[in-house]
C-alpha cells in the first residue's frame, strides 16, 4: 500500500467516525454535549497539528548545530593537504 493510500484510509476512517457521530447516522442519539464537541473536531485537530508542526520546526531550526569547529578543522586540513601534495609533485 502506498503512503498516499495509507493516508486516505486513515482519513476515511476518522472522517467516518466523525460523520457518524456528528450526523448521528446510526441513530445512537448521543448526548448533545458530545455532538457539540464532535462537530468542530477536524478543525481542532488541524490547528493542533499545525501548532505542533510549527513548534517542532522552530525548535529544530533553533537547535540546528553550527559546526564551527568542523569548518576550522577543514580549513587547516586543506592547507596541510596542499602542502603535502605540492611536495609530492602535484601542480595545484
Amino acid at each position, binding site marked *: 500500500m502506498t*503512503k498516499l493510500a495509507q493516508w486516505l484510509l486513515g482519513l476515511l476512517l476518522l472522517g467516518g467516525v466523525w460523520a457518524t457521530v456528528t450526523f448521528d447516522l446510526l441513530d445512537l442519539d448521543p448526548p448533545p454535549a458530545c455532538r457539540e464537541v464532535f462537530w468542530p473536531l477536524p478543525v481542532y485537530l488541524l490547528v493542533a497539528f499545525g501548532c505542533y508542526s510549527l513548534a517542532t*520546526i522552530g525548535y529544530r*531550526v533553533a537547535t*540546528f548545530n553550527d559546526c*564551527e569547529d568542523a*569548518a576550522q578543522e*577543514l580549513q587547516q586540513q586543506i592547507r596541510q*593537504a596542499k602542502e603535502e*601534495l605540492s611536495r609530492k609533485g602535484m601542480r595545484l
Partner: protein
Amino acid sequence: MAAVRERKGARDGTGDMYSVLLPTYNERENLPIIVWLLVKYFGESGYKYEIIIIDDGSPDGTLEVAKQLQKIYGEDKILLRPREKKLGLGTAYIHGMQHASGNFIIIMDADLSHHPKFIPEFIKKQKEGNFDIVSGTRYIGNGGVYGWDLKRKLISRGANFLSQVLLRPGASDLTGSFRLYKKTVLQKLVDNCVSKGYVFQMEMIVRARQFNYTIGEVPISFVDRVYGESKLGGNEIVSFLKGLLTLFATT
C-alpha cells in the same frame, strides 16, 4: 610506497573492502583535498579501500588533476572512470559500481561538504548491526551544518519535517548523500530508482524501507561548499516537492 600502503590496508583482516564513488563535475580545487583526506583516514583506520573518480567531462580539467593524483597514490587506490558528458547521478553510480571491487560502496560528494573522517564511524556502525545501509545525518545527535543562514536552515528543517510526516522513511536525513551501502543493496536500489538529482537520494532511502533493508545512522557535520557555489534555488525546492509527492503517491 604502494606496497607499504597495501600491507597497511590489509590490517582489517575481515576481507571487507570499501569502494568510494566520487562523481565529479568541475571539482579541480576540491578533488585533491578530498582524495588526500580519504587516503589519510583510510590509512589511519586500516580498512582496505579504493577511490573511483567518475568525472563527467568537466571543462575545468578535473580529470587532469585526477590523473596527477593517480600518479601520486597509485592506480590500485585511485581508479578513473570518466564519462563524456554530464549524465546524472544515478547512472554515475551504476557506472562506478561496475568497476568497484569492494563489497561495500561509499557514496559522497566531492565538494568537501562530506568529511572523510566520518567514514571509519560509518564502517564501525555498519559492523555493529550488520546494517545494509549506513546513512550520515545532519539532523540528529552531534550532526549539524556550517555556512547556512536562517532561511536555509528553515527550508531544510521544514522540508525534512514534511518528508518525515508524509513518508515515514525510518531515516532522519533523506536528502543527504553521504552513505555506505552493501554493494548488492546499492545495486538493487539503483536498479529500482527513477528520480533525478537529489530526489534520487531520497528515493534510495524510501525504496530501502520498501525492501526492508536495515538502516544505521551516524551524525555528520556538513560544511557547505568551500570552493564554488552552493546550489539551492526556487527550482530545487520545486523539484524537491515534486519528488516528494511522487514518492508519496508511488511508494
